[in-house]
């Protein structure tokens, strides 16, 4: 949006419209179908009839260009790290990363093995960590809700910055 150039980055019009757009972003989180290991199965179930993430506007896309969220569902090793970084870079801003499962958070049960990366945050910035091995679809759902909250919080912070005050 070129609105910030017209009204200035801290104007009320800009921050309010950003807030509105964040509302839209929050409710349209298309995730990249990027299952690596065991967690991918639970990620599949999250899109299935019982959990049906489509209800929240959370839907999968095959191409990183059309995705907003990357769910890293599984163990990342040194060979995968290259592809993971490329895929992250291919996603357009604004983008978020969910580290799903113990492996993506810390390396999980395989952290001793020299070929395994100790948590995906060594490669890409992570917004929400979801523990579990593997996390149940409910946990993934909670992760998404946390992500929505985080997006909202950031929009509020920007509004506060625009007002020149701090809510604390």
């Amino acid at each position, binding site marked *: *949006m070129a609105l910030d150039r017209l009204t200035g980055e801290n104007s009320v019009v800009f921050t309010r419209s950003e807030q*509105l*757009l964040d*509302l*839209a*972003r*929050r*409710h*349209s989180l298309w995730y990249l179908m990027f299952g690596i290991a065991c967690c991918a199965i639970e990620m599949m179930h999250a899109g*299935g*009839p019982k959990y*049906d993430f*489509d*209800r*929240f*506007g959370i*839907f999968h*896309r*095959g*191409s990183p*260009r*059309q995705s*907003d969220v990357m769910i890293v569902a599984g163990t990342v090793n040194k060979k995968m790290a290259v592809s993971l970084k490329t895929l992250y870079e291919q996603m*357009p*801003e*604004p983008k978020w990363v969910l580290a799903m499962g113990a492996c993506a958070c810390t390396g999980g049960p395989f952290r001793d093995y020299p070929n395994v990366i100790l948590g995906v945050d060594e490669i890409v910035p992570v917004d929400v960590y979801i523990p579990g091995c593997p996390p149940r679809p409910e946990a993934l759902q909670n992760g998404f809700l946390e992500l929505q909250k985080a997006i909202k919080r950031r929009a509020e912070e920007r509004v506060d910055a625009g007002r020149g005050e701090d809510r604390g």
Partner: protein
Amino acid sequence: MSPWLDGALRVLAALALMLTNGVILILMLRKVLARFHARIGPNRVGPKGLLQTVADVGKLLTKEDFAPRAADKWLFTLAPLVVFVPAFAAYAALPFSETWVIADLETGVLYTFAALSMVPIGILIAGWASSNKWSLLGGMRAAAQQIAYEVPLLLSAIPVIMLAGTMDMGVISEAQQGAWAVIPRWYIFHPIGFGAFLLFLVAALAELNQTPFDMSEAESELVAGFATEYSGMRFGFLFLAEFSNSFIVSALAVVLFFGGWTLPFLPVEWVAAVAPVVFVLKVYFGIFVLMWIRGTQPRIRIDQLLSLGWKALIPVSLGGILFTGILLKVVG
């Protein structure tokens, strides 16, 4: 009213129609597919999930504007427009009622087909310009598919045009008013019309890139096909054009085979009052059928698709035209 203002209003009307349609159809697709797949579908954003597409569009609008480094920037930007504009232009000749038509063309059927046939060119450009191998394969498939199916699609409409004796979509609709005894006088119930409809359905599915012929964006084979590298609103345009096309093809089917805005067994003046509603409902039912097919059918292979087009549909549709000609000559 000055002709300029009149023209501008008509263009705006078409644009509004197309955008509204896009928004409604995307939500409808998600809801319908969800129901076919034993799910519920969007229901959290807005009442009953009605604002889901609004949220999606809002998000897509503000995504980073992005073109791959290796892409041909100019063509990459142009392609969504080449797909979008004809899909938009094709609304012009659709007769929503006797008077509700943006441009009343005598060759309406031909015009609509011509506008539709522009779309694959845009897809080919998109596939080429992305400089992604999957996109390229998707684009090439779209080109091969279009050449194979453009012909039978048009040929399958010719028997109806011969029966009606005109290419004016309004007149074709009017010709289907009334009923043969208990059967509506729609061409679908005419023996020739029925055969033509089957050909039309297959060719239209292929022309629309719809399952089972969704070659150019075959998700399990080509990632997202020609659209793989597109993000943000450019992707939105491609997506919107796709839904707009299904509206147009469904509208064509309604005009050619299902009596357009007419209804059988009801006085003409009653129907005339609600004609646009009747027309849109019929079209939406057609789109529902398309979604039904999309939700349940597997995908055919590209060589099977092409041999079906060249070896079966074209000869049969040509035979159908010959048969119609003889029949019209004999019966009068």
